[in-house]
């Protein structure tokens, strides 16, 4: 659906996007992840033809973003970062205007707008002035605007920006649903969002792609070890036995004060040592009140990837 080759965007004295190449296949939900200022929004703006690339090319649905810009824009539903809306229009009015603008005829426009409003739960506020809407509703109107002409590709720039936790959850659910019918490219710096919705993540920093892989694989590639938390009642000498379990690299005990001890076991990230710990506990007759694995999260992988100052060659793998 999207193919970008050596896309570059330079501003005076600064390279915002530096020769990035990536692909998004049809039906995928891909997350563009990076710190603020990484070049995510700039890349999206180049893809949606709002900006022109300094170098490099990209095609969307087979159409070149420079040569066939009109065709590209017909196939993309774009939701910009600040969700710009006209404050002096009503919700339904605005969506009908946008639907017409995107080429829908009069009759199909009404049906399409009704459907988009239904998908984004906007039917109740159809007659409300956009200036009076709360942030959550504004985002939904922006999303409905992106959906209204039923594009093949949705490009969403920070879609949960400024939403409260309940709205974020709804939004995530909606995106997953939409992912069944559309190809989606989301740009965000919220890791949990990406972990829960995206099949693949492209990590971008300072204009360069650092990694492109599924969240699971990125975590597995982590060089940092995982850890297991154990809260048990055992004689003081028994701690040494924990160190002997295969896969445990380090044992870090803390007295909890009420007779229980917390152990933080540093383990090999690929191995789950909990079963072995449990068996050891049974054999030694220890009491356990917590045994959990603090597996590395995407946040750990992200921070780890980004702390290399040197731009690494992007390790691409399609899942």
């Amino acid at each position, binding site marked *: 659906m999207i193919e970008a080759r050596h896309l570059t965007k330079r501003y*005076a004295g600064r390279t915002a996007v530096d020769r990035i190449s990536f692909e998004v296949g049809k039906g995928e939900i891909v997350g563009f992840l990076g710190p603020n200022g990484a070049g995510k929004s700039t890349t999206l703006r180049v893809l949606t033809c*709002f*900006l022109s690339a300094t170098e490099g090319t990209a095609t969307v649905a087979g159409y070149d973003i420079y040569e066939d810009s*009109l065709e590209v824009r017909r196939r*993309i539903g774009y939701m910009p970062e600040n969700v*710009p*809306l006209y404050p002096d229009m009503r919700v339904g009015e605005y969506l009908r205007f946008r639907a*017409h*603008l995107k080429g829908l*005829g009069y009759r199909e426009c009404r049906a399409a707008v009704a459907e988009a409003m239904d998908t984004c739960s906007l039917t109740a506020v159809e007659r409300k002035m956009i200036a009076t809407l709360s942030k959550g509703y504004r985002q939904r109107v922006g999303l409905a605007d992106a959906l209204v002409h039923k594009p093949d590709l949705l490009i969403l720039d920070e879609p949960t920006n400024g939403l409260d936790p309940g709205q974020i959850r709804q939004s995530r659910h909606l995106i997953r649903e939409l992912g069944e019918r559309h190809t989606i490219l989301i740009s965000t710096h919220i890791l949990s969002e990406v972990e829960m919705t995206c099949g693949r993540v492209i990590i971008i920093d300072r204009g360069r792609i650092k990694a492109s892989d599924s969240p699971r694989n990125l975590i597995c590639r982590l060089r940092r070890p995982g850890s297991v938390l154990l809260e048990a009642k055992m004689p003081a000498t028994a701690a040494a036995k924990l160190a002997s379990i295969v896969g445990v690299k380090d044992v870090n005990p803390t007295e909890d004060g009420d007779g229980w001890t917390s152990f933080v076991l540093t383990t090999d990230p690929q191995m789950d040592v909990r079963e072995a710990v449990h068996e050891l506990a049974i054999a030694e007759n220890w009491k356990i009140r917590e045994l959990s694995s603090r597996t590395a999260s995407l946040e750990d992988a992200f921070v780890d990837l980004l702390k290399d100052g040197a731009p690494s060659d992007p390790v691409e793998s399609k899942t």
Partner: protein
Amino acid sequence: MRPFSILFLKELRSFFLSPMAYVIMALFTFLNGWLFVSMVRAMQLQASPRSLVHNLFASGWFWMGFLILFPLLTMRLFADERKMGTIEGLLTAPVRTAEVVLAKYGAAVAVYLVLLLPVFAFFPLFRLVTGEAMAFQNGAVWGSLLGLFLIGAFHVSIGTLASALTANPLIAAMLTFVFVMLHYFLGFLQNFGMVTGSVWSEGMSYVSTTEHMNVLAEGLIDSRPIVYYVSFSVLLLSLTHHVLESRKWRA
């Protein structure tokens, strides 16, 4: 529906939904109404070699009110879109930049014409009230209408360009005002410090708005002002298009 008509209607709608359009219309009509009455009274007291139509549209009061219109009409055209960020939504929709420019320009010109109409309603009203059918000639009225339409279209194009150059509507208004005024006063150069009949004086008279109106308000349809205003409007509109497109490339 074609993008041009959609955008055009939307702009029109947003002009007429704001109270500003009506306030301007009321003030402009009031100013010119008072001026019209004064002109008639003045001409009653002292016969004038020129027609009522000419006297009305040559008076300084008229031009003062007239030239202020354009910054007010055009300042929000593009500057507002850039300020609110909606220009991003507009230019990422499948519409050509040329369609956007023409639609916004067209809507501003349409609003301008609506603002102008009450003033031209004075003439038939005058005839109705006084029964003086021969007080002025029809040709003069039509000529003035054509002249003001062209001049207005030109000034609106100045305003459109100014609006596209900045993200701040106030600066756009100031730019428009300065350039509109500059152009108007350029037309007076032929009278000040220039030897009448010299090359410079002749040259300036081609550019002079006052001169153009003098001719057209007599009912003489001269192709020179028509070509002048149409070609400049086209030039400024294409510059506007370039300014918008160049933002994609610029830092």
